[in-house]
């Protein structure tokens, strides 16, 4: 009984400490983000490369998934809306489902699987190979040069790809709106635009920014936890990705609370 209580206490302390350290690191990054001295030719080049690797390279796969998944889902959603006689709520349902919930969630899952794991492994390898020491010795700030561009890239990529996903899926909805409800392009566009709620869009944007911020920040933090041992690399990636998943769920729940209060 006492051992169980001790275990609960220790776990709570560790979780709280991890949460506190993550927020502290996030605060450091945010301060650097709004400091113009953090940016120079080297960091700008890294930002451009990171955006290319995260957003551009993934585009063919992303477009394919968006069209296939989006088209199937839209077909099912439209059919359900018709069967339940909820045609007058079509716009609102689509905007809430696609723009506010589905687009950020699918985008962040794809980027987390691809880029977060890569960032985590990259930082862990650099730690093990003492390349972070090299940057330090040459007086190159690791936060400015390595971490900040990756976090900025995360935010930009999730926001842009999420918007792109929304556009692709809503465009594929045009096909079903014509087949099932006989709506023209103009009518369909009017339905969507009139249902667009400024508050929901702001929440969606903040959610995308938070997603992008934490799915890059957390892997960086866990990458730095690697020791001098090569075997610490997969452990840091494993722990980092679990934490990324927890962060995604946490942010999603928080946004749902904000939208529906």
């Amino acid at each position, binding site marked *: 009984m006492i051992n169980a209580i001790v275990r609960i206490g220790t776990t709570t302390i560790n979780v709280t400490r991890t949460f506190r350290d993550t927020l502290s690191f996030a605060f450091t990054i945010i301060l650097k983000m709004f400091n113009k001295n953090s940016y*120079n*030719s*080297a*960091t700008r080049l890294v930002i451009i490369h990171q955006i290319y690797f995260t957003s551009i390279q993934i585009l063919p796969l992303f477009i394919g998934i968006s069209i296939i998944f989006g088209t199937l889902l839209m077909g099912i959603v439209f059919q359900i809306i018709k069967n339940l006689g909820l045609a007058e709520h079509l716009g609102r349902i689509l905007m809430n489902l696609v723009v506010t919930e589905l687009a950020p969630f699918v985008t962040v899952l794809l980027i987390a699987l691809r880029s977060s794991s890569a960032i985590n492994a*990259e930082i862990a390898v*650099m730690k093990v190979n003492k*390349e972070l020491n*090299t940057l330090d010795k*040459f007086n190159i700030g690791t936060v400015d040069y390595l971490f900040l561009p990756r976090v900025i890239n995360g935010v930009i990529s999730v926001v842009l790809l999420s918007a792109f996903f929304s556009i692709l899926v809503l465009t594929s909805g045009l096909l079903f709106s014509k087949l099932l409800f006989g709506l023209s392009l103009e009518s369909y566009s009017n339905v969507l635009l009139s249902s667009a709620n400024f508050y929901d869009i702001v929440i969606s944007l903040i959610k995308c920014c938070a997603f992008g911020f934490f799915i890059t920040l957390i892997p960086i933090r866990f990458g730095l936890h690697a020791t001098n041992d090569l075997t610490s690399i997969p452990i840091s990636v494993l722990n980092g990705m679990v934490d990324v998943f927890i962060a995604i769920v946490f942010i999603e729940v928080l946004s749902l609370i904000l939208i529906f209060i």
Partner: protein
Amino acid sequence: MPLISNLDVWVNIALIKQYHENLSADKAQELVIRYLTGYGMEHISNKRNPALTNRERFCAMLLRAAMVRDSIVVIDRPFTIIPDVQDDRFIYDSLKAVDDSFKECHIFDYLWSKDRYRMIGL
């Protein structure tokens, strides 16, 4: 100090100028290629660390150190970086090619390697 393994050689070297002096990527790359050409190693500019030979790696690391303004270059046991080299001729020639870029150079090595330093002298 090891090269950054996920950066090309030219980026490893140019990073110093780009970060500290805010030199543009194009100008920094041009500068690096010029120095690499002096070594006859312009072909390594787009290679990464694992693809380099020992001599190429030594020159890349030396150039990177020399990029720091008013640098004092410290080479710790150079023959561990280039084990296939028997004497200091390669080291001397490499330093000579960039001697306008650094202030001083100090080489640290074991006493038993003293006979390998004929050109640099002790």
